[in-house]
């Protein structure tokens, strides 16, 4: 059974957004992914920890705003949980896009919100992860025919990233 189906069944009314590689793929950039990432409200942290561990997942890292779980099965996605304040979660959910992933109905952030999340990850990420996020941002802009010099994108970088990162993206796409 798909991990997303297991989560839908176990969530019992709790909402989650699929982010990370699966959301990037849903928004048009088909690249490899090795895990599943979901975004939940910070207020539901305890409930989600129970849901995921009850599914057999093992908590391997608790980083405060995120938790990483290891799959009990070698052919199932490992799972990362990202937590945001309830207000932020509500705003992301309000404009989320319905999608079907692995045959299961889920929701992913809107393209503009996914880009904001990716820009945030670019600013705060480390190691090779930053290369992946930089590629995701550039490819999402390219495949969705978004002008990288548009004012709203610049504003996203000012708010969630920085202008050095913005210039790197502009260079990649020029």
């Amino acid at each position: 059974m798909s991990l997303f189906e297991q989560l839908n069944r176990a969530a019992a009314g709790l909402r989650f957004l699929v982010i990370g590689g699966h959301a990037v793929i849903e928004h048009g950039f088909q690249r490899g992914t090795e895990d599943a990432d979901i975004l939940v409200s910070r207020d539901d942290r305890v409930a989600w920890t129970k849901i995921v561990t009850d599914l057999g997942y093992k908590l391997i890292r608790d980083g405060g705003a995120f938790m990483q779980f290891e799959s009990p099965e070698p052919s199932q996605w490992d799972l990362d949980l990202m937590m945001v304040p309830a207000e932020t979660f509500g705003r992301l959910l309000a404009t989320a896009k319905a999608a079907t992933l692995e045959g299961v109905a889920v929701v992913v952030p809107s393209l503009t919100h996914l880009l904001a999340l990716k820009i945030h990850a670019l600013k705060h990420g480390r190691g090779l992860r930053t290369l992946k996020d930089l590629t995701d941002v550039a490819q999402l802009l390219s495949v969705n025919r978004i002008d990288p010099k548009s004012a709203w994108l610049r504003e996203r970088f000012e708010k969630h990233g920085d202008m050095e990162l913005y210039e790197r993206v502009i260079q990649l796409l020029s």
Partner: protein
Amino acid sequence: MNESSNYSLEESRLIYGNAGELEFPDWSGHLPHRSRVSNDVWLAYCRSNLAKIRTRPGYAEGRKQDGIAAEFRF
């Protein structure tokens, strides 16, 4: 060459015809346009590689880089 590169090559051939004299680039998985392969087929392919990927040296270390400690807010 990985499977996604093959997809890209096949798609290029569909667009440009059977132009045997042309050299098509290896995009190494980075498609410059929406793929014609369905997302479900693609994700099934990614998932089929998971067991093998987890035995790769450095997998656990690489995964540790995935988490973002800073909280995202609107």
